[in-house]
């Protein structure tokens, strides 16, 4: 097993003929992902890397039975693309697009609250279940199938940590990049809950950063609801207050959003928190070994 995407995923790529969409579709196909359809309005009838292209998600879903989508369309059209995927019943929607207006995302988040679907992102690297499905822009070479779930707000930092895990011979069940924007479809808690229910996942790595209080809420959830051990890492201890550190969401705006406050909450909830990426792999190794 795995979470969100696996052997049963029939993937649809929104924006398949764009530069990013085309490139990553190739990589997802190389990873053995079952990419069944692409959508680019006005390019219906073409095909891309052998994947049929449709004008609308509705049509693509009806023709191919797609059940998950990944979105590469530009920011002004991305919220609409999410609504389109929701309307056609996609169960997992990964929105890679960076730079979607926060007001657009508040509308999406409000609407999605009434639906069964899971939106990952936006501004995220996607979801990858090694050996099963790659619905992401993550480099599959650093992954290995295994029993550690990874959930992260950050891209390259995830690669860094996954790489350290793999180099130690520790494989992953699923890695989920939830994205660094202020408003994201799915936060730590929902993903932790899914890992908790996944019999294959024996340990979860949670990678947080400054900004917001998602890590605190996650700590509470781990303490109350989870049996599966969690190892955490928080980046941004040296970030100065009030400065944007790349991720729009990572603004230290209040006492709760500092790395110190987050680490404290994690430790208070009995979660092992590493002080650097290498230590994450060590702690996971210990956890699995013990």
């Amino acid at each position: 097993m795995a979470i969100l995407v696996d052997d049963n995923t029939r993937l649809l790529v929104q924006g398949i003929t764009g530069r990013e969409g085309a490139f990553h579709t190739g990589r997802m196909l190389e990873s053995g992902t079952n990419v069944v359809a692409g959508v680019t309005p006005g390019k219906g009838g073409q095909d891309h890397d052998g994947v049929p292209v449709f004008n609308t998600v509705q049509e693509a879903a009806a023709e191919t039975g797609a059940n998950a989508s990944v979105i590469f369309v530009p920011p002004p059209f991305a919220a609409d693309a999410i609504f389109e995927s929701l309307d056609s019943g996609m169960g997992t929607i990964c929105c890679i697009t960076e730079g979607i207006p926060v007001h657009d995302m508040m509308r999406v988040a409000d609407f999605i609250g009434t639906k069964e679907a899971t939106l990952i992102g936006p501004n995220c690297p996607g979801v990858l279940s090694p050996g099963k499905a790659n619905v992401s822009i993550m480099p599959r070479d650093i992954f290995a199938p295994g029993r550690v779930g990874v959930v992260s707000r950050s891209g390259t930092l995830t690669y860094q940590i996954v790489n350290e895990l793999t180099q130690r011979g520790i494989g992953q069940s699923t890695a989920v990049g939830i994205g660094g924007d202020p408003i994201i479809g799915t936060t730590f808690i929902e993903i932790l809950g899914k890992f908790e229910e996944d019999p294959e996942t024996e340990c979860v790595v949670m990678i947080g950063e400054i900004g917001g209080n998602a890590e605190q809420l996650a700590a509470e959830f781990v303490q109350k609801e989870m049996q599966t051990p969690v190892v955490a890492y928080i980046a941004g201890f040296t970030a100065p207050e009030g400065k944007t550190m790349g991720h729009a969401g990572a603004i230290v705006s209040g006492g709760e959003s500092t790395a110190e406050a987050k680490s404290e909450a994690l430790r208070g909830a009995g979660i092992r928190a590493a002080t650097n990426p290498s230590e994450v792999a060590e702690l996971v190794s210990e956890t699995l070994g013990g």
Partner: protein
Amino acid sequence: MDLYEYQGKELLRSYGLETLPGIVAGTPEEASRAAETLGGTVAVKAQVLIGGRGKAGGIAVVHNAREAEEAAGRILGMDIRGHTVRRVYVEGGAEIEKEYYLSITVDRAAKKPLILFSTEGGVDIEEVAETKPEAIVRTHVDPLLGLLPYQVREIVFAAGLSGDAAKGVGRTLNHLYEAFEGLDASLVEINPLVLTKDGRVLTLDAKVTVDNSSLYRHEDIAELHDVEAADPQEQRAQEVGLQYVKLDGNVGILGNGAGLVMSTLDVVAQAGGEPANFCDVGGGADAEKISTALDIVTSNEQVESVLFNIFGGITRGDEVARGLLSAIERSGIELPIVVRLDGTNAEEGRRILAENTPENVHTEETMLDAARRAVELARGTRDSNGGR
């Protein structure tokens, strides 16, 4: 994108919020003329994109044009927490009965707009939140429904307002929510919102932050962007699509991906060093971009060593290595540079670096080792430079 008080007020006025008359001035003479035009007692207020100007002496209440000129002469050019005052806002006076606090922000956890209102206005709201939390009324708005009349009533009644205050605050709430939505704001804050002795409710100070991601649909606001206000290097970084933030240490840091760079800063600090900056070069191994990034990072005179931390993800490590070598060569930097390259095709990348590296470039295999080395080298630079 943060807006100056005078810009924010102009935008809020277009949504129906009431303010006092005011005029922007860039020189003491302009301030004098503005005070004359407005007449009576006026406030001369420093326009800076940071809070705390009052405590810093950036606001003066004066009674005539001459005093306004004097005050502007003192305030213009002032440094307020690293921001130079280049304009003042000369604003008419009003007899104030009561001060309130009102803001709308994006609540990340609730994924909804959050309205905060308090009858304890004109003071630091974070202090109120700590010492007297019951004095702040909090209301979430459903973004698809918008602010509904009953919510306005809830806020007004919960705050214990009545009469002119209730009506004026209610009207302000509706207009401010329209502005928050219409401007794609991530924050609109009025502190203080005042009730005047003659029963009007006025916006006395305004902080408006517009979501950068939405600027493509707000060309008028994008044009307000004050390039002069930013640090020149931060400005240059922005132009080429780099994320750069200057800090106070001596170890220059570059990396790909915000999370990885933040983590690198932390690891450097743990190794006993002090990061000189945050610099995210983003994806790809574009020599041009890396070269610019190196230029920006090393243009900071405090920098004594540079740590380049790359995790080759989609981009292969060998390509990154070549891009990096080309960039180092082009920028002709002599400071010690520690390169740590990992991820896809990292071994090949490291081999390329090892074969072609100039003397001042050092490679390390892990983030931790790279951080330690960069910290050591920074100390070494300082030692060899003596008391520079």
